[in-house]
């Protein structure tokens, strides 16, 4: 964060040359000495300094000697100067640091053996390095029992070393301002905003940023030691932002249990950030209600079965229905939480094996409208990283603070550190208005009219009018936007269909990039992978010839299939004979009377006995995103790799289930998943002539990308190969993906996806900060927090505090 901040400053300022520990280095003027040292590999210790937060100069650990300056100086508050000569290690410095640690330890309890931070504590590390473990203080230590401030935040006051990182990250970073400092000097204490407890967004940023074990989390405290866990960096499975979360797993009765989530791996698009869900809501995976065995309904009751029995039953039932009623009597519902590979496989299974286009998912945003409006234009979508760097942002609809916490963090950080301009049009006074250059509160449901107004349609102003809005403010915003370059336009599901087209046309004229906000972890992936009755992966219409037809779709009907609501109607009419639901709960989501499905053979793959699963004939217990590999695409189109962290005995992943069912139906699995040395087609070895078109294009692609053929039909990476080969925009760096980077896909090479979006089918999830659909219902942490806030007055916004980095 600070890095890019520095780079930005560098544009305006010349470089200066200085000497540190005899090394000559050149850095941009304005760089802090501590950062300059870091850039050349010299570590200057510090507790209070934190990149991206305001300077504190409280801990005195970063003291260095600078020539011509009489006393030791704090490297964290000293900007570099031309010709500066600094020393970071000397006996004098060592002594100073040792004394500081001695002071810090004067009242610090030596309860390291039971402290959560033990083993990953900055104070422990420093003491180890500078050696001040023997104390000269004879006085009694001030003890105070641990306090619980909220369901997730605990405070152990004597452990606190008063670095104020928590106070700053909560205020400046989160714009929550729930932590403060009371009293002064050695009597200072960190205090919560409600005297003895916290009322906040429960993000846990304060806990992760704490250098010692003063702030600990309810989810993890006293559970284990850091070195007893394996740490796996994977992608959060809650909202659509795609934060990287590092899960600490430990052996348990049920397999590998996730005991902690944090952001110690700061390499993700979220940098320092995680919200409550990414940090604590992994616990749905450990919920005792989780299914561990396939269930088959007999005489109205679920009976546990073996996997073989379940797969055999499903395969034979599909074949039976296909033979008696044909492909159009089968429907498939996909998920917003399964991986891209599983989604792609599912739609391929539906189209290739079941022979139907009756496939849909819970749509939370009109991605097809964006794809069709962009019509293959390059560099027109923004990544999550762009939101942190863009000079200007226009946000229409949505409430990112609640629904897209990382996006909100990126916006706030950009405004705070880069002075980005933020324009907001919303029907409610959303919290981000506090960062906005201009905010207009428009009439509910008038987001489309607002876009019309932007496109110089003055008549639309009447539709936008609200009591909180003046005509001047509206016009001023329109005028100001005209002169913004490098604009990123972010819009929520309020804008759909033709509104999106209008917005895109307007934005493209300004050279803007777009982000369409969908609600779940892989909503964008589900859309990109073609979980639509009328669209193939990459938003290609089923009716036209595409590269998919050429490769595997030869026998699939070109007429669009039934969408989710039409599937329900078909079930009502008795025409839907089988329904295959993967990781979705349409019965609850669309408020369907379970009786409607009584004449349909329903197969559900899920972790829990949801409303939909309860009305199923076969339920397969499956792994969640934390328990498997694959890729996710966040709402911006950034693709990241999932890494298997947890393990839950008895479950299998969705990918394997789909392949097994297909195999059971007699399908040649090679046609479904490109695995094995043979590739997907026989290579006749001819470069010309009648057989030349028959070369194994998959093998050619693999060779071209220096990749090996995959050896197992259950390897999702084999599917990723095909996705990267065939889905427009997904030919991204595999090396980047494998090393944990986020790779931005572009909605390119998409043609003919015109107006197929069906905006009326978009239904936002309306999840808030503490809810997360089915996952949230089974997360004990989220439920405890919800329970607590239910008893409090709603939506009391904490006043904005003083942010030195914005209002200096």
């Amino acid at each position, binding site marked *: 964060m600070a890095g890019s901040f520095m780079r930005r400053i560098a544009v305006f300022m010349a470089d200066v040359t200085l000497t540190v520990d005899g090394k000559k280095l050149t850095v941009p003027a304005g760089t802090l000495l501590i950062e300059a040292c870091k850039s050349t590999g010299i570590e200057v210790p510090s507790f209070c300094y934190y990149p991206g937060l305001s300077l504190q100069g409280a801990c005195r650990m970063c003291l260095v000697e600078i020539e011509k300056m009489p006393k030791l100086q704090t490297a964290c508050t000293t900007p570099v100067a031309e010709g500066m000569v600094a020393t970071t290690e000397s006996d004098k410095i060592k002594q100073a640091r040792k004394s500081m640690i001695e002071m810090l330890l004067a009242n610090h309890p030596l309860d390291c053996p039971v402290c959560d931070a033990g083993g990953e504590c900055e104070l422990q590390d420093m003491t180890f390095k500078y050696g001040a473990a023997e104390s000269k203080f004879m006085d009694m230590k001030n003890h105070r029992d641990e306090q619980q401030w909220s369901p997730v935040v605990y405070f152990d006051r004597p452990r606190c070393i008063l670095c104020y990182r928590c106070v700053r990250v909560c205020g400046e970073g989160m714009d929550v*301002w729930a932590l*403060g400092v*009371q009293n002064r000097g050695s009597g200072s204490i960190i*205090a919560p905003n409600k005297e003895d407890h916290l009322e906040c967004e429960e993000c846990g940023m304060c806990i992760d940023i704490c250098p010692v074990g003063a702030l600990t989390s309810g989810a993890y405290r006293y559970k284990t030691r850091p070195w007893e866990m394996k740490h796996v960096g994977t992608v959060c499975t809650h909202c659509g932002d795609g934060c990287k979360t590092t899960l600490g797993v430990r052996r348990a009765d049920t397999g590998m249990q996730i005991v902690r989530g944090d952001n110690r791996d700061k390499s993700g698009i979220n940098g320092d950030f995680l919200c409550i869900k990414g940090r604590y809501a992994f616990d749905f995976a450990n919920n005792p209600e989780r299914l561990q065995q396939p269930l088959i309904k007999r005489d109205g009751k679920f009976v546990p079965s073996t996997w073989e029995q379940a797969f055999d039953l499903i395969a034979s039932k599909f074949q039976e229905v296909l033979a008696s009623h044909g492909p159009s009597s089968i429907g498939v519902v996909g998920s917003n939480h399964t991986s891209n590979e599983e989604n792609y496989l599912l739609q391929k299974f539906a189209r290739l094996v079941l022979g139907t286009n009756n496939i849909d998912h819970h749509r939370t945003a009109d991605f097809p409208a964006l794809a069709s409006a962009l019509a293959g234009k390059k560099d027109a979508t923004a990544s999550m990283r762009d939101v942190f760097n863009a000079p200007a942002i226009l946000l229409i609809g949505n409430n990112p603070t609640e629904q897209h916490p990382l996006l909100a963090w990126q916006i706030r950080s950009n405004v705070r550190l880069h002075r980005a301009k933020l324009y907001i049009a919303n029907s409610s006074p959303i919290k981000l208005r506090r960062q906005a250059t201009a905010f207009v509160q428009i009439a509910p449901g008038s987001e489309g009219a607002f876009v019309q107004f932007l496109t110089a349609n003055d008549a639309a102003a009447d539709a936008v009018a609200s009591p909180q809005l003046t005509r001047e403010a509206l016009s001023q915003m329109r005028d100001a936007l005209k002169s913004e370059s490098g604009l990123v336009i972010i819009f929520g599901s309020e804008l759909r269909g033709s509104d999106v087209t209008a917005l895109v046309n307007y934005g493209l004229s300004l050279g803007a990039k777009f982000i369409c906000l969908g609600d779940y972890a892989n909503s964008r992936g589900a859309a990109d992978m073609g979980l639509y009755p009328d669209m193939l992966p990459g938003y290609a219409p089923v009716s036209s010839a595409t590269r998919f037809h050429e490769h595997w779709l030869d026998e699939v009907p070109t007429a669009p299939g039934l969408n989710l609501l039409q599937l329900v109607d078909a079930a009502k009419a008795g025409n839907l004979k089988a329904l295959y639901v993967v990781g979705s709960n349409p019965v609850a989501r669309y408020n369907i009377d379970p009786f409607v499905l009584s004449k349909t053979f329903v197969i559900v793959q899920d972790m829990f006995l949801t409303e939909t699963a309860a009305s199923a004939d076969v339920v397969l217990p499956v792994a969640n995103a934390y328990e498997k590999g694959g890729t996710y695409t966040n709402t911006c189109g950034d693709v990241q790799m999932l890494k298997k962290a947890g393990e839950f005995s008895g479950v299998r992943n969705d990918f394997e289930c789909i392949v097994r069912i297909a195999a059971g139906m007699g399908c040649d699995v090679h046609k479904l998943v490109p695995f094995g040395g043979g590739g997907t087609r026989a290579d006749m070895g001819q470069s010309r002539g009648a057989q030349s078109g028959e070369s194994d294009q998959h093998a050619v692609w693999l060779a071209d990308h220096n990749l090996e053929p995959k050896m197992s039909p259950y390897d999702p990476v084999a599917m990723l190969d095909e996705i990267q080969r065939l889905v427009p925009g997904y030919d991204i760096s595999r090396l980047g993906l494998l090393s944990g980077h986020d790779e931005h896909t572009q909605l390119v090479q998409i043609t003919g996806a015109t107006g197929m979006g069906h905006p009326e089918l978009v239904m936002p999830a309306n999840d808030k900060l503490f809810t997360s659909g089915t996952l949230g219902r089974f997360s004990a942490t989220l439920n405890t927090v919800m329970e607590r806030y239910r008893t409090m007055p709603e939506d009391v916004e*904490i*006043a904005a505090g003083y942010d030195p980095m914005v209002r200096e």
Partner: protein
Amino acid sequence: MKFSDQLEQRFATMVTHYPTKRSVLVPMLLYIQDELGAMTDEAIHEIAERTELSDLEVRNVVSYYSMLRTRPVGKYNLQVCTNVSCLLRGADDLFEHCKKKLGVGNKQTTSDGMFHLEEVECIGACSWAPALMMNYEFHENLTPAKIDELIDGLKKKEQQ
């Protein structure tokens, strides 16, 4: 909550003196304390709203400054300086004298709620040490006799 007309008027003028509302906080807190005797929860909430701060931030400030209190003290607040200059000129003995005279210890209030005694750091009256502050009034070049005179005078004034 509403303050006295005089204080309301003062706030209205003062708030215009600063570029940001929060800047009016410290002077306002002092005036509020003079009026209410101490910073009550209600007053903290009120001033937080008026300065667009959170209650927490106001509490941070209140707890930082020793001259701001959350509990009321006696009518007359005797703050005896025992910092270097005063100390050299016998402030320790004077403070002991005050304790004996009033029958209370440091940071205690007499049972009739009249006097509050407090040992404080430098009050900036070194040239006339030893010194004490009685509410906002300075008393300098102190001797035990001068202190008796001051306290007895105040007692007498109250009896009338």
